[in-house]
């Protein structure tokens, strides 16, 4: 069923579309260290795709390749059916790929609202002189984008901290603000680097709910990294499993759970 070009239907009845992004034989090296070794997989429209694996498996490196922060030595990244030329991270972002970071990268000095507004920068087309005049076009544009941002702030339930400087927020809320900023860009593909890392059970549940809601409400395609198996299995439609830079499994959560190589990687295996 996964081979159908026009997608598949999930267990809970969501229609998953065609391939949005395809990684073809990606290899990434840092000097002599091979971080990613000949990995291929695809991401389909509307699905939640997880990349899992133990620490140091190369998951974050893979996300950095997708978002343009790393340039792989070999392989191609296909986006919307065409190979993507080498791009800088900001160019990738302008193509509609938004992301969050493992170690939260927010603008600490700005308020929550301003942080989320930066996600809309690519929708603001007025030039520097119109901006300086402020009246007319620039003002209308600001209002319009502000409305879009307020919607997302409501959606993620962070209205009460809109004006708070980000540096004063607790960890869990920061993660949520980062998600809001990424969502503000109305991305075609949303990349989440360990969205639940370092959270307590309650925060994890909240975040899981938001990820599902985002996917459900906006139909956003999501690729996320996580090393907490439990969370991933409940959330995702399909899972790629990495270990030491190789792909050792790819399929639905159930398929992956029963894959012997995956079990070995996670539980360890005796070599006798």
């Amino acid at each position, binding site marked *: 069923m996964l081979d159908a070009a026009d997608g598949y239907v999930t267990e809970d009845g969501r229609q998953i579309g065609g391939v949005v992004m395809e990684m073809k034989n990606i290899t990434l090296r840092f000097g002599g260290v091979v971080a990613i070794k000949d990995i291929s997989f695809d991401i389909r429209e509307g699905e939640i795709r997880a990349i899992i694996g133990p620490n140091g498996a190369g998951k974050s490196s893979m996300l950095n390749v997708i978002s343009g922060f790393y340039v792989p030595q070999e392989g191609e990244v296909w986006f919307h059916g065409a190979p993507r030329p080498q791009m800088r991270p900001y160019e990738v972002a*302008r193509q509609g790929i938004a992301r969050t970071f493992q170690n939260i*990268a927010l*603008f*600490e000095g700005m308020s929550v609202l*301003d942080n989320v507004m*930066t996600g809309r*920068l690519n929708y603001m087309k007025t030039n520097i002189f119109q901006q300086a005049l*402020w009246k007319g076009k*620039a003002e209308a544009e600001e209002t319009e984008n502000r409305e879009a941002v307020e919607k997302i702030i409501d959606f993620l339930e962070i209205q009460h901290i809109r004006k708070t400087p980000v540096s004063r927020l607790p960890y869990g809320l920061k993660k949520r603000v980062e998600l809001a900023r990424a969502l503000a860009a109305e991305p075609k593909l949303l990349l989440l680097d360990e969205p639940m890392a370092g959270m307590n059970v309650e925060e994890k549940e909240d975040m899981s709910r938001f990820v599902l809601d985002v996917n459900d409400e906006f139909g956003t395609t999501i690729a996320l990294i996580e090393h907490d198996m439990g969370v991933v299995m409940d959330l995702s439609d399909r899972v790629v499993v990495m270990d030491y830079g190789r792909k050792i499994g790819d399929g639905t959560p159930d398929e992956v759970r029963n894959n012997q190589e995956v079990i070995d990687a996670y539980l360890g295996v005796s070599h006798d």
Partner: protein
Amino acid sequence: MPEQLVFAMEVILNGLMAGVLYALVALGFVLIYKASGIFNYAQGVMALFAAMTLVGIMNGQVPFAHLINATFGTHIHYFGWNVPALVAILLTMAVMVVLAWAVQRFVMRHLVGQEPIILFMATIGLAYFLEGVADLMWGSEIKTLDVGLPQGINLWLDEATFNIFGYGFFIDNLDIVATVIAALLVAALVMFSQYTKQGRAMRAVADDHQAALSVGISLNFIWIMVWSVAGFVALVAGIMWGTKSGVQFSLSLIALKALPVLMLGGFTSIPGAIVGGLIIGVGEKLFEFSIGPLVGGATENWFAYVLALIFLVFRPQGLFGEKIIERV
């Protein structure tokens, strides 16, 4: 009112005006430091370069005249026209934008991610290079700059204070104009960074490069913009100082006067640069007035640095700088 107090008031007023000029230079430092973490040693030379370019364009000087004449055996020095001040200022601004682009393209772009000290060294190199280019382009003679700013004693203030205190204050018109322009400049900069899209992007870059990239901001574009804005501030400072004391190479030394201002105000705060400038300006004038005669004068040469040193001991981040907290 006792005579001494009236004198002191005049000294304070003059100090405030001088402080504004220091603040103008310091402002250029703060802009670049905030956005890219680079301490731009060349800011003073940029002010010199801007002022020289402005004079050169206004007088219709041929750029690189010496070089051209030496190569081709010609004797051209002037185009033979004069450019109106406003047009010349706009042209100079264009030159400063080109300079900003060149600095980013040929120097800073290749040093992204390097240690701050390396970036600092690069700006020292840039300072001397730019000084050489300015010399080659426009020659090294001292020139007067007159863009039509009022100069000389403000008679109205003189008369008004004479009527009140029985003693007329000597306040230079140029200082008053400088104060007004500086206030407008700061207001414009604050509005720009708070309320415009580019300003928001600039603050974003200042805060976190990675995050800025991830929302689609081109660091390169923002840095060129920041260097251009710093160039504009340098131009304003160059006009003020150039009008006051002539366009000459010692103009680049005003950068050194901006250092204590930055230590007082903090390297990352625009209001800090203003307040720091005012404190230094008033402080050194008042010190010279009250203590100067006791120690043989010339305290203005060192007072600012001693004040900065004291600040470094007790409040290293300056009055408005970001607090330095190191987590272990």
